[in-house]
């Protein structure tokens, strides 16, 4: 889908006023954070695992070319094929070609963020295929014609009533659907038919294992496995940063993934796929294709943003971000929301498109504190702000004010004089009331807050006077 990141402020405005969304967010609020906390408290080895995970990722990224080549060699040895895509367009071309080769009509899809990133559904539809999302949350947003709002819970913004309406409109069954159970049962029913009739299944990958040429995929629903097993061709879409050296390394990351995402120790289905079906297998795809997608990742690798490539897409940062918690994912305008999206979207789409994202943060640091691979998100956000400043992209008014502040701060005597006048004025304006309801030029503050009055004399002026009195 096209990015609306450039409309971030409008998106935020709309999201804060969207009563349905706010009710849904209120219902969810704190839930993921509480579950994660419980899971972490139950695992004394958690911090040691975090350190190990970070080390595995850093090591792998430092040797990414070798591990990708090793992965490719093992996939090919096992009867699969590896394709390389430098760009989103290249990845789309490869997937379309593979679907054509399979004479496909219907294509089932497990959840894949890279799939959203390259907008594969639209490309498939335009090429005459019928893409069907199988993850229930993704299926719901597909019916609604929307982007997922959360990377783990794509339809978190939808109420049961919303979903029931969508199902009634699209399934043509006149069922009541007055409970979550009824909705899930209907989805299971409708989806089963689609699973069985798919010609090609596209999934993402949580990890690519170089040692064995395997793809690790986790789901709670089991849709990933049905997508990968029923059709005659299984296509795996994966960013190049998904590779890890061994199954042992995948296991370390798996120990952190579900706990960080949903608070579970392990997801219901963790599958290691290795190649196409064997001669005596009774099911499985005849063709196994892995599409390795660059799309800006190699550029990140060579930059001061390399640490972002550690990301295992758990969603913990989103779940702990107060900004995300207030507006949910669509406000961020593209595939990746929250703190990780505020780094990735500008890096992938450019700061001109996504300039608000790195700035719409107090740098509170909660994201970094919960990231299983310790990505220094506030540092990366500040670095993006540095780039904006260097390229003159900050809005003129704020640049001027900040430049003025800095100029004064560098001149202590002038600062003391000017600020002394300023606080005396403000204090006088506020008078006895001690606060101001309106201050010209500070509407951003006073729209929702009073401005407390300053004392009227600065600490330093009073301090020096005291010292002078003392001396006498």
């Amino acid at each position, binding site marked *: 889908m096209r990015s609306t990141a450039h409309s971030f402020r409008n998106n935020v405005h709309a999201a804060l006023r969207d009563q349905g969304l706010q009710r849904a967010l209120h219902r969810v609020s704190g839930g993921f954070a509480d579950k994660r906390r419980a899971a972490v408290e139950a695992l*004394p*080895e958690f911090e*040691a695992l975090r350190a*190990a*995970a970070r080390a*595995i990722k*850093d*090591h792998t*990224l*430092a*040797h*990414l*070319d*070798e591990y*990708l080549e*090793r992965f490719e060699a093992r996939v090919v040895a096992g009867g699969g094929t590896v*394709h*390389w*895509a*430098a760009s989103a367009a*290249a990845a789309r*071309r490869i997937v379309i*070609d593979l679907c054509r080769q399979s004479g496909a009509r219907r294509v089932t899809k497990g959840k894949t963020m890279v799939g959203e990133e390259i907008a594969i559904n639209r490309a498939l539809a335009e090429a005459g295929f019928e893409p069907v999302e199988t993850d229930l*949350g993704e299926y719901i947003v597909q019916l609604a014609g929307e982007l997922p709002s959360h990377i783990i*819970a*794509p*339809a978190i913004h939808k109420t049961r009533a919303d979903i029931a309406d969508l199902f009634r409109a699209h399934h043509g069954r006149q069922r009541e659907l007055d409970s*979550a159970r009824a909705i*899930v049962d209907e989805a*299971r029913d409708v989806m089963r038919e689609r*699973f069985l009739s798919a010609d090609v299944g596209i999934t993402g990958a949580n990890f690519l294992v*170089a040692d*064995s040429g395997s793809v690790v995929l986790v789901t*709670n*629903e089991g849709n990933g*496995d*049905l997508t990968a*097993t029923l059709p005659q061709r299984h296509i795996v879409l994966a960013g190049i940063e998904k590779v890890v*050296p*061994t199954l*042992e*390394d995948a*296991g370390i990351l798996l*120990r952190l993934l579900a706990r960080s995402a949903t608070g579970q*120790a*392990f*997801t219901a289905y*963790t599958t*290691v796929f*290795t190649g196409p*079906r*064997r001669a*005596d297998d009774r099911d*499985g795809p005849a063709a196994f294709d892995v599409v*390795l997608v*660059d799309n800006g990742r190699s550029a990140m690798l*060579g*930059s*001061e943003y390399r*640490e972002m490539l550690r990301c295992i897409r758990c969603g913990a940062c989103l779940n702990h971000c107060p900004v995300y918690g207030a507006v949910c994912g669509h406000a961020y305008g593209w595939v990746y929301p929250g703190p990780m999206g505020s780094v990735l979207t500008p890096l992938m789409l450019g700061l001109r498109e996504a300039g608000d994202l790195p700035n719409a943060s107090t740098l509170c640091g909660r994201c970094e504190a919960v990231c299983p691979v310790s990505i220094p998100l506030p540092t990366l956000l500040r670095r993006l702000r540095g780039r904006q400043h260097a390229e003159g992209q900050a809005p003129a008014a704020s640049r001027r004010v900040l430049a003025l502040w800095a100029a004064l701060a560098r001149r202590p005597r002038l600062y003391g004089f000017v600020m002394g006048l300023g606080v005396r004025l403000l204090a006088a304006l506020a008078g006895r009331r001690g606060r101001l309801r309106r201050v010209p030029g500070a509407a951003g503050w006073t729209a929702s807050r009073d401005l407390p009055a300053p004392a009227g004399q600065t600490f330093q002026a009073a301090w020096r006077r005291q010292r002078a009195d003392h001396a006498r």
Partner: protein
Amino acid sequence: MHDDRANVLGAVRAALRQGGAQAAPPAPETPDERLRGRPTGPQPALGPDRIAHFTDQLDASAATWTRARTTTEAVEAVRQVAQSSGHSELVAADHPSLRMLPWPSAVSIRFDARAQEARCAVTLAELGIAETGSLLLCASPATPTLLNFLPDVLLCLLPTDAVVGHLEDAWRWLRAHRSPLPRAVNLVTGPSRTADVEQRLQLGAHGPRLLHVVLVDSGLDASIAWRRP
């Protein structure tokens, strides 16, 4: 077909030469060394009783389970669970270890290469992993992957002495006994589930609603099917 292999690998190599990251450089281990050594990282501590840990994790994952001392107890457990979930006919994977079990003549059981099409099916797992309460099921002619996903009710037998401690034990076992790896190795932890509707947990999203594990203390050898003449 247009392929960017040289392009992508070239870009990755150029990026690595450039340096990037301001973080401290990682330990100077080479890929060859890591792939040879397959180092193990931190593992969650298990209690002194591995089986108890396993069954605690089964409980936490919403799987149900029975412990059977003998194969007679095991088949009785299977019959009971199938019956109480409304299935009088049992369909089992066409696996020699399942055929060998002492199914009472009163029990209607069919061994079917297409057991995955049944609504209630019986299979067996090669390993259990205590750390997570997972069953390890490998794709094989007798145990196709779909058997783990299509039925509503899945009954899974597991030799008690096939419960290993950690994920690493499972990986080691696979490399020793299932090399090259099967097309699919499923680590199944409880029934299928979703919380996508208002964050309320529902079981049986696309896979089984009910997963029942029967731990069999003696008489069950899950690996028989792999021993081909």
